[in-house]
């Protein structure tokens, strides 16, 4: 199946960060979360995709159209929700809706009205007068109904309350069910990632460590609690160890070694997503 978004050999020099070389593909029917520490380059990558930042090298294609070329039709196929929005302050929700909906031929008015009711967004108030949480809700209500092939969300739940987060998750699932679409989002919220993502792309200091299938990633790492002291020598698959505890990213090899050395473990468990991401992001 044709990829929605293809990033190849992307590089960008920033003041304090060198982003790339980076390769990434987003296929239809998938939700990919971009995870990484603050300043890892997540928002910059989104701005590069949207051609709001200029790449130094490489290619970014949305449905085979280069996003920095003369053909600007790719913008019809992508809806971008930036982390920060400036410039909307003087406009009411109604005015913003009229303006934005007129630019998208497949605007889903029913979905917009549903989101407005669900999030209780006052459309007659100026954007600048709304709280950060309501601003984010309105921003989302003006993004999802654009009915594009790709949804690019930069921290979509950062200011949302718990019930609103839950509602958004359901809306995103519903949005995905409507066709060959994909979501590419940046998030620090492990609950969002756990519930929604099919893939997790981990970015560390501008470099893409890898794109992992979520369930495979969850089962790829295991923690073992050992009764006696561990041997000094290196243990196959072990990526982190303490006095009576070790973490392995190749459990089969680690278990085989421990059995061979007649070292028994009292308990073993899979790591939760937060622990896994911390490990991936912070491991040297």
């Amino acid at each position: 199946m044709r990829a929605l978004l293809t990033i190849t050999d992307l590089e960008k020099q920033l003041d304090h960060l060198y982003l790339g070389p980076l390769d990434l593909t987003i296929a239809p029917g998938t939700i990919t979360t971009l995870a990484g520490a603050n300043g890892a380059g997540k928002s910059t990558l989104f701005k590069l995709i949207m051609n709001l930042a200029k790449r130094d090298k490489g290619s970014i294609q949305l449905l085979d159209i280069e996003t920095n070329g003369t053909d600007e039709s790719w913008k019809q196929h992508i809806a971008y929700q930036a982390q920060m929005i400036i410039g909307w302050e003087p406009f009411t929700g109604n005015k913003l809706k009229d303006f934005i909906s007129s630019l998208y031929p497949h605007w889903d008015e029913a979905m917009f009205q549903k989101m407005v009711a669900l999030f209780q967004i006052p459309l007659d108030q100026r954007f600048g007068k709304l709280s950060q949480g309501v601003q984010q809700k309105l921003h989302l209500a003006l993004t999802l109904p654009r009915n594009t092939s790709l949804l690019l969300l930069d921290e979509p739940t950062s200011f949302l309350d718990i019930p609103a987060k839950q509602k958004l998750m359901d809306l995103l699932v519903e949005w995905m069910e409507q066709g060959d679409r994909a979501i590419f989002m940046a998030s620090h919220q492990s609950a969002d990632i756990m519930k929604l993502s099919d893939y997790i792309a981990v970015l560390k200091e501008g470099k893409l460590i890898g794109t992992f299938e979520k369930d495979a990633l969850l089962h790829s790492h295991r923690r073992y609690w050992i009764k006696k002291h561990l041997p000094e020598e290196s243990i196959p698959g072990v990526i982190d160890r303490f006095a009576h505890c070790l973490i392995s990213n190749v459990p089969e090899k680690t278990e085989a070694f421990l059995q061979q050395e007649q070292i028994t473990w009292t308990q073993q468990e899979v790591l939760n997503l937060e622990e896994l991401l911390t490990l991936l992001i912070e491991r040297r």
Partner: protein
Amino acid sequence: MQKWKQAWQIAKFELSVSTRKIAFGCLIILGFFSYAISSFQQYLDNNVIGYDLFFILFFTLGINIGNPNYWHLKQADVYPLLMTQLPLPIQQEIVIKSRFIIHFCFSFPVQIAFLIIFYVASPIADLLSIPAYIAFAIIWLSVNLYIGTLTPISEVYPANWLFTVAMTFFFLFIFLFILTLSNLIFDHSVVKLSIIIAKNWPVISSMVSLIIGFAAVKAHQIYMKQIMNKRDYF
């Protein structure tokens, strides 16, 4: 023309919330009106250089000359509303044209109003016939086309307060240089010189002004596009 129509639809969005800004700008400009009318005779007698400077600034910036918010926004890295429009499916060319339309809406109406009041209320009617005054008006409205259209470009120019101050001094220097040169070579200040030109060569001066003006509008759009395609929007 179709693209200008599309750009007008985009510009209308911003204009719909600009009523207060326009009203406030007009209020400030009223001060300029009274100064320009009451000091005109004194200017003709004494060649006051400040009068020329005010004329050039007014026909370059329109109501933005008295809008403190405008100067504040110029210190921002990029015009805020533009940031929200760039990711939307609007062709870059349309976005650029819409910025030009916004500038024209903030300048031409008040400039035309001034030119009408100026003819009625100042002694210029004694110097210029109506056809010659139309040429005078075209000469000055064209200033907006070839200098004023640098204003939308400044909205996308990567800037900070230092840059803004530097550019302000640079343009001030250029304006003063033109004014001084006009006095030295022609022995007349700029506004007086434009009166003489409009009186003696109304058709040619109008045509030349409009040709330069429209060429500049075209060139400035291309230049704005080049800047937009080079810079990052963080």
